[in-house]
């Protein structure tokens, strides 16, 4: 479980996060949705410690991440996996080396144990036999799956997924969504997904937090989002004709 308590962050005179509080439950896929420039990325960076908050607390289970020093944070960080928008695979490493990198850095696994774990993960993400390929030889969907494989290499408790479907075709997008769902259930992780993609939200979200101008202005689940009367949320969710038709049918 991840708890956010009154998170505030400013850059110069611009307050980007204005006192965000919420709880992301364990074993659930929690979505943060919102328009570009509303604070989603900054909030995520605060949660993983890439940006320091000005005020507030981020609590991973019972550990106050904001109050920790660099070395204490490391123990929490080894329990965090993250899939970046562009996958952020290490270009100079093969698929296998990318996946084994956290194991090399943070475990005492032997080569055999690392190889065994790598094979397990590659099977889970459907990339068997791609061990020796370099990121430049992978398609967009394969890169995302490799990124997910690297993120779960150390059995993390918390998984952050940034725009999992950007740049992917609809079928691959659904496959990645289902993979996120499957891995969340399998590893009982607290998963936080940052997305614009309403298809993903409808497909796999357990809880949804809508951010606008640095504040969560609506929280709910995928059923309630379609019934919501919140004007800002409606503008966002039903921006397309397709979604408006879905809403009409749902009514």
């Amino acid at each position, binding site marked *: 479980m991840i708890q956010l308590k009154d998170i505030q962050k400013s850059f110069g005179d611009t307050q980007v996060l204005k006192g965000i509080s919420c709880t992301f439950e364990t074993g659930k896929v929690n979505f943060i949705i919102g328009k570009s420039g509303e604070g989603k990325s900054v909030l995520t960076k605060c949660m*993983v*410690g*890439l940006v320091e908050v000005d005020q507030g607390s981020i609590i991973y289970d019972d550990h106050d991440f904001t109050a920790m020093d660099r070395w204490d*944070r*490391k*123990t929490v*960080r*080894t329990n*965090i996996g*993250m899939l*970046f*928008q*562009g996958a*952020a*695979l*290490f*270009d100079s490493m093969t698929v296998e080396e990318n996946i084994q*990198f*956290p194991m*090399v*850095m*943070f475990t005492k696994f032997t080569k055999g144990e690392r190889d065994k774990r790598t094979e397990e993960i590659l099977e889970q993400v459907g990339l068997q036999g791609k061990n020796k390929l370099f990121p430049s030889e992978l398609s967009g969907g394969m890169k995302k799956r490799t990124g997910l494989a690297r993120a779960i290499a150390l059995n993390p408790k918390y998984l*952050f997924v940034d725009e999992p479907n950007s740049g992917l075709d609809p079928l691959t997008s659904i496959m990645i969504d289902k993979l996120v769902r499957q891995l969340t259930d399998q590893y009982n992780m607290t998963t936080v997904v940052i997305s614009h993609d309403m298809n993903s939200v409808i497909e796999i979200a357990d809880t949804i937090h809508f951010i606008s101008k640095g504040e969560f202005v609506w929280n709910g689940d995928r059923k309630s989002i379609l019934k919501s009367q919140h004007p800002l949320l409606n503008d966002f969710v039903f921006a397309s004709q397709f979604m408006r038709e879905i809403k009409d049918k749902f009514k």
Partner: protein
Amino acid sequence: MPIFSSIGRYSILMGRVFSRPEKFRVYPPLVIREMDKIGLQSVGIVSLLVLFMGAVVAIQTASNIESGWIPRWTIGYTTRQSIILEFSSTVVCLIISGKVGSNIASEIGTMRISDQIDALDIMGINSASYLILPKIIAAVFIIPFLVLLAMFVGVAGGASIAILSGNVSFADFEYGAQYDFRIWDVAYSVIKTFFFAFIMTSVSSYHGYNTQGGALEVGQGSTRAVVYSIVIILVADFLLTQLLLL
């Protein structure tokens, strides 16, 4: 003042680079890889350039010795001193700065804009240390060997061209090249190289690490890395020469 801000950020980055690494045993392979990239892959270009530098110094010295009072072996002496004191260390390091500095800045800059550095940080890895420290250690270790090679090749180049062009006999050149030889001159040059190697790798890494934006900024960062490295190396050359030779 932006310059003080840059110095401050550079110092903080170096503090992170030299802080305790996560796992010592992952560093030796990285250092060896960097030694290959920075040192071994520069042997060809360094040898070629310094060979011609030695030749040019020998020809220029020969063409300037008109007086019968100045012995011909001065060509060997001047070539040796120029190559050992300045060309092998400073000029070679300036050349390597252009090649290696831009490579380091663009490599780290690309990692920055493609979130690879953020990925390291999120894993709990000190990205500054992991990415930069092996480059600094490799450069400080391998570039002095390149400089020693440059000394040999430069003097050999000068000797070849001076003898082949008939400006000086082998015996005269050999006499001049050995005349008043002080091992301190070689040591002075190698000592300078340690500083230059540190400057070129750390300054280039700093510019790469602080890249923000996209491909355009990676290119700009790479250019800045080379320009700043060269300027700082020249300033350091002046200060070290004052300190070590006077």
